[in-house]
């Protein structure tokens, strides 16, 4: 993915709050992915409207971290999600 890509959750993939385990989960075909704080933070920003650059800026501001570092983490995470077809880009 590149900073200009606008990621979104495709149909059949959704975030779910698992009340029994007390963790956020990404649900998709044959998939129940327990999210760590990084995954949760990134996916909470994925709305299909903003591109990766904008998402990274928002996260960098919130976590007071350098935007270049955040952006490379975001891309790495979303590339992995996209390879499993849990995230797509517009």
């Amino acid at each position: 993915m590149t900073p200009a890509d606008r990621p979104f959750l495709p149909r059949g993939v959704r975030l779910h709050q698992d009340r029994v385990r007390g963790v956020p989960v990404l649900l998709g075909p044959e998939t129940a992915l327990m999210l760590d704080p990084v995954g949760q933070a990134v996916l909470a920003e994925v709305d299909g409207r903003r591109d990766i650059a904008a998402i990274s800026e928002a996260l960098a501001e919130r976590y007071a971290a350098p935007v270049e570092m955040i952006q490379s983490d975001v891309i790495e995470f979303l590339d992995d999600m996209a390879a499993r077809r849990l995230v797509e880009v517009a």
Partner: protein
Amino acid sequence: MTAVHPAPVSARQVRPPPEAPLAMLAELTHRCPLACPYCSNPLELTGRERELTAEQWAGVFRQAAGLGVLQLHLSGGEPASRPDLVQIVTAAREAGLYTNLITSGIGLTGRRLEELDAAGLDHVQLSLQGVNAGIADHVGGYKGGFDRKMMVAAEIARIGFPLTINAVMHRHNLGDLAQTIALAHRLGARRIEIACVQFQGWALRNRAALQPTREQVEDAKRIVAQARVDYAGRLSIDFVPPDYFADFPKACMNGWGSTGLNIAPDGKVLPCHAAEIIPGLQFQNVLTTPLAEIWNDGPAFNAFRGTDWMPELCRACDRRDIDHGGCRCQAMALAGDARATDPVCRRSPHRAALDALIAAETGVAPPPFEYRRMPH
């Protein structure tokens, strides 16, 4: 005043409670228009009169969600054979479950799929018996099935359901593997599961007819590796190789009673769909016992949890926590002992007999299918 007595320690109390299950397979019915010789249903099929009602299923779904189940697979038989399927899907979504329909497509129409869409169905898994009517209708034992399936696949794509193609592979169609993957992509699938037949249920009865040759298995591995490169980012490929040809057993059910459970059409709760072949296991019914009690403490679920049940070969093995001793039903079927090491394992004393069995079955022309039949 309250006197404090140390609680008596029994084996039951020493065992830590199991983790919550993630997935549940609900066999809504054993009825099916197809008659596939590898059907995973038991040889003794349950008749329509004993099936749970939609209201009863709704109660089971609520219990399952409360227990921690996230993924629900609606299966059969053919789930579309139930006229109340839409009502059942509605109940599943109301319970908060990710709802997957496992279907041959027969019994679904564009209109019915639209109703399932409105009910909130998350995902469709469509079975594929072959890449053309000739082979597919022969395997399914249902003339016209392939053409109907292709129409249903087009309706699924029109509505936009995420689609997985589930291609069951064996001696008669492994030669078409590359075309099978291409067809899945053409039908708009996001995923394909290439599932080589597991020899349980009716497949065990038809094993000699379905057993792939070693050459076919090696070709399949190469084709899958190439397809993963060719379709990267477009089609996700899951491959279940035939475990008879592996060196170590599969981690069946990810460990008995660890991750998933299965509900039979009459409400019987099973640790896996084939578990009824193991003699002596006591199965409970969700109509008479709470699901949480069955999962946490049911005798059939506890039978092969942990490592206490294992033979010394498995308990001392460095792969003990990787494959959990393999498949209990397979140990039963091949070694006549559900507590034995899965005979697929190279370290099993039964492995030589399994190799001889493969050689015998693949050394001759396959016998005709014995199709799955409902009792009359």
